[in-house]
């Protein structure tokens, strides 16, 4: 690869060699485990729910790490608190809240049903808290946090909300 390349400027007239550099770097390093991406964790979400809503009946938490079709790793964590009254939905990517549902347009499949996006899935499960989409239905007495961590998220919109789960 790039015999005699000692400076990045050598790639200026050899753009195609960047691919070789990438393959060499990948061969020489271990792929980071999804854990390296970090996550928030159950304990913090429990504390957060108690801090915001006071009385929490029960909190359910799940975390899953895998890879996207592009090969990039991701971690998805999800916490749901049962409350005495409707709470809110908090969606985030890489430790930052989003303007809406980052998986809107992505089909989520569970053992009993599938639905579009986090809000659609919660709605189908009668577990959608107070959101704009819950106008036709009494909001559920829950609060939900959905968090995705992934390097180089690609978005389908300029508002950096809807993730392209198929993208590279």
């Amino acid at each position, binding site marked *: 690869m790039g015999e005699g390349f000692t400076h990045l400027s050598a790639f200026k007239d050899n753009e195609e060699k960047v691919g070789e550099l990438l393959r060499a770097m990948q061969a020489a390093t271990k792929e980071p485990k999804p854990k390296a991406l970090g996550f928030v964790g159950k304990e913090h979400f429990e504390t957060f729910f108690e801090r915001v809503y006071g009385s929490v009946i029960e909190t359910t938490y799940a975390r899953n790490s895998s890879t996207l079709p592009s090969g990039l790793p991701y971690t998805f964590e999800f916490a749901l608190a049962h409350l005495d009254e409707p709470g809110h939905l908090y969606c985030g990517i890489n430790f930052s809240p989003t303007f809406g549902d980052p998986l809107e347009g992505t089909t989520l499949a569970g053992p009993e049903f599938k639905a579009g996006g986090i809000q659609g899935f919660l709605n189908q499960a009668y577990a959608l808290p107070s959101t704009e989409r819950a106008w036709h239905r009494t909001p559920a007495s829950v609060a939900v946090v959905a968090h995705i961590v992934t390097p180089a998220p690609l978005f389908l*919109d300029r508002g950096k909300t809807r993730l392209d789960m198929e993208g590279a």
Partner: protein
Amino acid sequence: MSKLQRTTFETSRAAEYFDARQLSALVGVSQDGFASVCLKELVDNSLDACETAGVAPVVGVKVEREDDLMRLSVSDNGPGIPAGVVRKVLDYNIRVSDKAAYRSPTRGAQGNALKTVIGIPYALGSREPLVVEAQGVSHRIRPWVDPAGAVHFDYSSAEMLLESREPGTTVSLEMPNAPQGEAATVAAINGFGSAHVAQDFDPLHWVRSFAAFNPHATLSYQGKGEGSEDVEIYKPTHEGPFKKYVPSQPTSPHWYSSESLKVLVFSHIGRAA
């Protein structure tokens, strides 16, 4: 009859950042979400700055509503944005970002966050300066767009008095805010067709959201308006360093494609040139 010799004029695309409709297309958020965009971008920047410096983030959000005005201020305890970077941000022909070319699990990588935050108040009709206080310097930035669409800045900076200096960065801005519940567009107020737009803005929800995703940070919210005052403080629940990727960590080659690595390599080449 004499012939018109047409002149080819060049118009900067910077004006996109100062027109509400174009800005809305640029950031992908409707005009009634502009206050939320400012808050989100500023808090993202604050958290990143603190993490990069290895400091446990302490971020404060203040929102004051008074009649049809809203003042937003975001402060942090990071190293403070250097004066040179503030001035570079005012060059709308370039993107100033230390994240855009890298692939890592970090918050937003738009590379135009502060440019957007400077543009939004103007686009909504404010003519008050945006103020950045950092590293002992107070920067006052008042943008204006001439009728031909060229963007200008009335920029001034001043050394702050020792007693009023705080660590980190504080960004303060003011924007018009039509009363909630009114039709989104109330009245055009200047020659560019900008209008008072009722902001669909729930700053407390945003602060809570940031608290939900950042166990290592202290986030405080102070909201004033209509004779009431709300204060909420979220303290860290994580003892010691938080185990998450921080922007100062190396990125992995496994997170790049050939195309994205080319962007990084040629960004370095361009910077060195």
